[in-house]
């Protein structure tokens, strides 16, 4: 593998487990002492990357904490944080923690309903919001959250007519805090010193594929031990570059861009806006990258669309060398023996295709990349690895402060999640459920003793709700959510996510939900990818006015049918899964949407809710009808609702026999 990053000899080692630094504010002060001039936070603003060193960040956090304190923030108070990734919002987390308060980050695209629930449930007194949009939401739900007292906003744009006494702008607050700090020099450090490792560090609300979100309470010890174990496992240093671009309310983002940055002393960079992430990624060239599978899917879709526009020479080169990569890329990355001729071809491919491609995507400096949050399609996974990107799977959840299993370099398999890391014990229950014990194990679900008792048993084992097993090498393999794995009427195994991931690898398919548990055959609801299919339609002079129109086109149905047939051929290659080939499908008239409760905020499918909403369509699929009628309520971004009616065609798909299965990628490209 090519390592683009040079590790200078003077690289500081990861800070030793310092007994004193058992909370993030203490770690911040330690980093400010150890490496005051190294960058800690970075943000692209007005087109330029602006940096703050550790010493500057410590000063920012001190002023903010003092400001909050002047405003009335006390130990144990909760501070909600809502907005896109911004250094100021990360500092707000640290400021709340410094005062012995508890930060509660909220998904920035939450609709008012969800926001009200979290703020009320967490008993939030203070909130820090990015901009007017978020302030408007907070004001809208304020009545329902009687405990919410004060709101701080970072971006004053459009806020000049807001006269509410409970609003305060970030800079004023910081200025007040700075004044206070000058006359109370010991205050900040005194407050920081009061914090203990066993204290609650943060409450993160899990998006939850079922029911209401649950507030996962994590202590400093939980997060810091897990973060440090993973830093040691991968040998991360203070020279890593990460892009902080995933929702701040998500544990993954919190660990990679906040916890590990504070522990190892590296810099977290915030993109200019959500729309510029790809460009910013390229400029930054992160060495340490974390992304859920959907991001990798999106990138691949983009690449495939753009290659369609390339001239034939480039297209030919691209496809030829992708073929080479598919054949020899994995052995090369794992340092296994590869024939010389293949090595030469791969080297040539790297010069002509993989290198430039990785550079364009901003992946050429990546030393360690993780995908987690959901199972990744093996084809998708291997695609990136075959280009020489050290993409690995990671297993973990909010309740475990992420890290449970990580794949070791050189022992990466597409269908496992690796070995348990240090201090983590994993056991498979008799019913196949994965159980764990680790220092990262959460304290409890906030104000939800029943749920806590259900997941956290007296013997110390925590029930994950995932079903899995250990493969012969001792690597953990996750099948699906335990409750989702079922059987077809004939008794064959039915693992929906596995099939859905097969479908989602096609650039044209954005989302798929398959049904089959207790049914005679497997049927699928498909969401087309508007960008990819739109582009495809454009090439064929296919006119369409909206997503709904495009989704209903016969030609689009033909296209998707082709994809599904291909997936069926693939499924047929594995005897255990051959019966779960897809026999019927339809294309949904709208995209599955988190605002409608169909996906979680991290874009996982909420199977039961979808099954209930689209009951009439599912019935039509299984009753053999040629179309299904549907009426759905939809929620617009501003919270208004409307009704959408549609008559959707249903197609039958040819099932493959147990013949040889050709490669997936051919059709996909």
């Amino acid at each position, binding site marked *: 593998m090519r390592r683009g990053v040079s590790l200078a000899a003077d690289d500081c080692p990861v800070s030793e487990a310092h007994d004193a630094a058992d909370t993030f504010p203490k770690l911040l002060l330690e980093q400010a002492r150890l490496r005051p001039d190294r960058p800690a936070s970075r943000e692209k*603003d*007005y*087109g*330029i990357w602006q940096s703050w060193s550790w010493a500057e960040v410590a000063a920012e956090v001190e002023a903010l904490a003092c400001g909050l304190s002047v405003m009335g923030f006390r130990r144990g108070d909760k501070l909600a944080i809502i907005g896109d990734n911004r250094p100021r919002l990360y500092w707000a987390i640290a400021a709340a923690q410094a005062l012995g308060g508890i930060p509660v980050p909220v998904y920035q695209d939450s609709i008012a309903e969800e926001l009200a629930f979290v703020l009320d449930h967490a008993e939030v007194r203070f909130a820090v919001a990015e901009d007017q949009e978020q302030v408007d939401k907070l004001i809208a739900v304020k009545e329902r959250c009687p405990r919410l007292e004060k709101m701080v906003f970072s971006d004053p*744009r*459009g806020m*000049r*007519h807001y006269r509410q006494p409970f609003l305060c702008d970030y800079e004023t607050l910081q200025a007040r805090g700075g004044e206070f700090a000058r006359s109370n020099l010991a205050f900040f450090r005194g407050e920081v010193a009061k914090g203990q490792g066993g204290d609650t560090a943060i409450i993160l609300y899990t998006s939850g594929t079922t029911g209401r979100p649950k507030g996962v309470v994590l202590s400093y010890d939980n997060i810091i031990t897990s973060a440090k174990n993973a830093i040691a496992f991968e040998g991360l240093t203070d020279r890593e570059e990460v892009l902080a671009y995933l929702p701040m309310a998500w544990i993954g983002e919190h660990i990679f861009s906040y916890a590990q940055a504070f522990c190892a002393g590296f810099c977290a960079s915030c993109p*200019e*806006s959500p*729309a*510029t992430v790809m*460009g910013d990624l390229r400029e930054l060239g992160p060495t340490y990258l974390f992304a859920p599978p959907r991001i990798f899917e999106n990138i691949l879709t983009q690449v495939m669309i753009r290659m369609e526009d390339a001239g034939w020479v480039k297209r030919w080169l691209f496809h030829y060398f992708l073929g080479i990569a598919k054949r020899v890329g994995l052995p090369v990355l794992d340092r296994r023996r590869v024939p010389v001729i293949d090595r030469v071809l791969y080297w040539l491919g790297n010069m002509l295709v993989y290198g430039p491609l990785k550079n364009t995507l901003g992946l050429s400096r990546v030393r360690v990349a993780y995908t987690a949050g959901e199972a990744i399609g093996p084809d998708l996974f291997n695609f990136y690895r075959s280009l020489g990107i050290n993409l690995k799977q990671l297993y973990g959840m909010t309740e475990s402060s992420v890290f449970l299993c990580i794949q070791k370099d050189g022992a990466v398999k597409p269908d496992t999640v690796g070995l348990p890391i240090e201090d983590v014990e994993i056991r498979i229950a008799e019913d196949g459920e994965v159980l764990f014990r680790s220092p990262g194990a959460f304290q409890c679900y906030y104000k939800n003793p029943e749920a806590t008792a259900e997941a956290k048993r007296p013997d110390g084992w925590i029930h994950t709700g995932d079903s899995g097993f250990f493969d012969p090498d001792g690597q953990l393999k996750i099948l699906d959510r335990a409750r989702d794995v079922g059987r077809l009427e004939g008794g064959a195994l039915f693992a929906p996510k596995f099939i859905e991931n097969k479908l989602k690898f096609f650039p044209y398919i954005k989302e798929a939900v398959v049904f089959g548990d207790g049914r005679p055959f497997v049927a699928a609801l498909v969401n087309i990818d508007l960008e990819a299919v739109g582009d495809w339609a454009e090439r064929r002079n296919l006119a369409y006015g909206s997503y709904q129109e495009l989704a209903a086109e016969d030609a689009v149905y033909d296209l998707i049918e082709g994809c599904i047939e291909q997936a069926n051929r693939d499924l047929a290659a594995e005897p255990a899964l051959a019966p779960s080939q897809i026999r019927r499908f339809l294309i949904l008239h709208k995209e599955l949407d988190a605002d409608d409760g169909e996906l979680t905020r991290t874009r996982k499918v909420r199977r039961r809710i979808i099954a209930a909403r689209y009951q009439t369509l599912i019935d039509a699929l299984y009753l053999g009808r040629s179309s299904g009628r549907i009426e759905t309520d939809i929620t617009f971004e501003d919270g*208004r609702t409307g009704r959408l009616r549609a008559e959707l065609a249903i197609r039958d798909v040819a099932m493959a026999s147990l013949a040889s299965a050709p490669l997936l990628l051919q059709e996909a490209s």
Partner: protein
Amino acid sequence: MRRIGEPVLIADRISLAFGGIVALSEVSVAIRRSEILAIIGPNGAGKTSMLNVINGFYHPHAGSITWKGVTRRRMRPYEAAAQGIARTFQNVALFKGMTTLDNIMTGRLLRMRRNFLWQAVYVGPAEREELAHRAHVERIIDFLEIEAIRKTPVGRLPYGMQKRVELARALAMEPELLLLDEPMAGMNVEEKEDMCRFILDVNDEFGTTIALIEHDMGVVMDISDRVIVLDYGRKIADGPPGEVRTSPDVIAAYLGEEAAPHSPTARVPSSSRNARSAGRGPG
């Protein structure tokens, strides 16, 4: 907080004809400081002609224009631009092959002091000047939330985005009076809502006076402080939106009797806005 002030631009009894066709006859318009003025009217009523007269593109046959206290018969477009009048066009007029950034930079051209030789050498004062202009452009990019398309050639952008870039270029001139010719034509509901918000924000943040032509009655009623209605080159109403909406002349001439649709322009129903406004489009 913005305050609507004294008239900054007074067009007095303007008449304009093309051959035998009278585009404007004795139209008087006063645009007050910091207001949002909408000019509406059926197709061919003389709205765009009026804007063209204001920014000196057409010279009126009769009447005078007073801009910031100076009255003149004719003003050339570049004079208007130099004195703080910027505009956008009905059919986007950008440099298609240039990036968003470069297009907006052209809006700074009038404010560049160094000549092209200095700029070509790009040292000392020329460099400092360029950097200052670039910083200004970045503030506009930030303001209009077009960071993601900063380096995209404008020709590759969707129409709604091009309109936004055009607005950005006009703003780069730091205008006192901004003339917008159908800023929302051909946009979908979401794009229109964005554009409305930007227009209000510009007016609010910089106190820029804005005169706009718009066909979407919902938008007009929502964002403008005052509405002027033209019909066959004559001004038939002038007042706050509520008043204009109920004026019998306007209802007859513009919002239309069933039998005589003046404007065939297709209108995208704009969500709840239309329900609130009386005008549901002509015909």
